[in-house]
């Protein structure tokens, strides 16, 4: 998961707190981040599925698009040139998952797009992008946004995710209005006196929230949240196994500049109007993939045995021909077994198709399965 670094590692506002909590720190996307706490990846994963886990995701990029004319449509139309999602159709407070595409229809990054709902800010768009891509994303936005839309990079915001079946109940004890918030919507409110922007979303497949808060308030808010016995800190290790079980893509692994959103199984995130109208970078390839079917598809792969198949593992057909590659693979504590996702030739993408995984020179039997591996438990109201 760690990327190669040069120069000193950056620290999130919670860095010192991670140390106090006994975290093992690793370099990730230029930041010194907690990979696990003393209980370890397995216990943290299971705690999140059963109770609530708190994740420091302050390394992610947060920014705003602000239209000079005060019209939401101005900002939305500008963003729609760069992402295939329906941004114009967002209601105040509503959030959508999307991707920055390139001219070839590949993915530069994946991101969350929110139309702010707070009175007076309903024309603002709030974006959350990947840490490893954020500098490139900001440059991409600056290069393409029209003069009437300003990019405001939020350097002074932390981001804290609380995920799991008890997550919202725990946060709602400090902010009761959160209880009725629906999946993929957001609210600006005070959490026990600390002003925050809260989205009912996440990266674990569980119900939960992501809380954007001033960096100066991040430690105080985290301590209030961790004071609840249901909430424990969770590192990047369990974040990865949780998202893999949920079938969610990790940028740079499962999606990149060579994969189209259609191949990646993200067609659901391209609303109907955009599929028909296009009008975003790389629309030609993406519309072609939609019309003709993508040559390869991202699928879930479940090994029959116990050996995990890691990223880069060659996937073969039952008769031994190479048909694809694993892009994420490991062990799922909730399903109590190995699991993987990767790309295969579309003729082999049907769930139930038997395949082979070449692990340490041996072809291990596996099959293509429908994702997620662990059921999503979002709150749709």
């Amino acid at each position, binding site marked *: *998961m760690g990327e190669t670094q040069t120069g000193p590692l950056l620290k999130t506002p919670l860095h010192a707190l991670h140390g106090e909590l006994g975290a093992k720190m690793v370099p990730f996307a230029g930041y010194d981040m907690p*990979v*696990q706490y003393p209980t*370890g*990846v*397995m216990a943290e*994963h299971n705690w999140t599925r059963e109770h609530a886990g708190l994740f420091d995701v302050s390394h992610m990029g947060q920014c705003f698009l602000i239209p000079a004319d005060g019209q939401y449509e101005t900002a939305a139309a500008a963003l729609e040139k760069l992402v295939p999602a329906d941004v114009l159709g967002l209601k105040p407070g509503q959030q959508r998952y999307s991707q920055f595409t390139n001219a070839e229809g590949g993915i530069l990054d994946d991101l969350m797009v929110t139309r702010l709902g707070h009175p007076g800010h309903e024309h603002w768009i709030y974006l959350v992008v990947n840490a490893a891509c954020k500098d490139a994303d900001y440059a991409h936005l600056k290069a393409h946004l029209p003069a009437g839309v300003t990019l405001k990079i939020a350097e002074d915001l932390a981001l804290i995710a609380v995920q799991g079946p008890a997550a919202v109940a725990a946060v709602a004890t400090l902010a009761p209005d959160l209880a009725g918030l629906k999946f993929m919507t957001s609210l600006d409110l005070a959490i026990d006196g600390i002003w925050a922007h809260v989205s009912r979303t996440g990266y674990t497949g569980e119900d939960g929230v992501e809380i954007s808060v001033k960096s100066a308030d991040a430690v105080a808010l985290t301590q209030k949240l961790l004071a609840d016995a249901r909430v424990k800190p969770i590192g990047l*290790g*369990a974040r*990865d*196994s949780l998202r893999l079980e949920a079938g969610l893509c990790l940028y740079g692994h499962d999606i990149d500049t060579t994969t189209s959103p259609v191949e990646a199984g993200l067609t659901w995130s391209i609303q109907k109007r955009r599929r028909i109208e296009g009008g975003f970078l790389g629309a030609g390839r993406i519309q072609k993939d939609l019309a003709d079917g993508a040559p390869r598809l991202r699928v879930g792969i479940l090994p029959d045995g*116990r*050996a*995990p198949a*890691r990223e880069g593992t060659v996937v073969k057909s039952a008769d031994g021909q190479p048909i694809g590659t694993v892009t994420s693979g*490991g*062990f799922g*504590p909730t399903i109590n077994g*190995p699991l993987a996702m990767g790309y295969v030739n579309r003729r082999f993408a049907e769930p139930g198709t038997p395949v082979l995984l070449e692990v*340490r020179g041996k072809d291990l039997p596996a099959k293509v399965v429908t994702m997620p591996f662990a059921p999503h438990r979002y709150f749709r109201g």
Partner: protein
Amino acid sequence: MATVKYTKDHEYIRIDGDTGTVGISHYAQEQLGDVVFVELPAAGKAVKKGDSAAVVESVKAASDIYSPVSGEVTAANPDLEGAPATVNDDPAGKGWFFKVKIANPAELDELMDEAAYKAFLDTL
């Protein structure tokens, strides 16, 4: 009491006559985290000192286990397939990986004894 020796890669070998029992140290299992899968060599396999002889996988990653000595594998721990977490729970005991018939006892002299390994850990 059997002698235990260690490699710099944190394997141990418990020496009992001409047979050695190989596993990983408490420090190694702690660094790996939760063990979810172990691949062991078959009995009869010839291994060389420093060869990758087994693989241990945690939730996050796979790691090679190198044989501390040359020789022939005489047994692999049958319990690890169904209960890989034994490596975490009892690395020095029930969590052993394989037994090897030691071909060249002189190779043992190149390994660290308990005190030297403890001193080595202090440098990490």
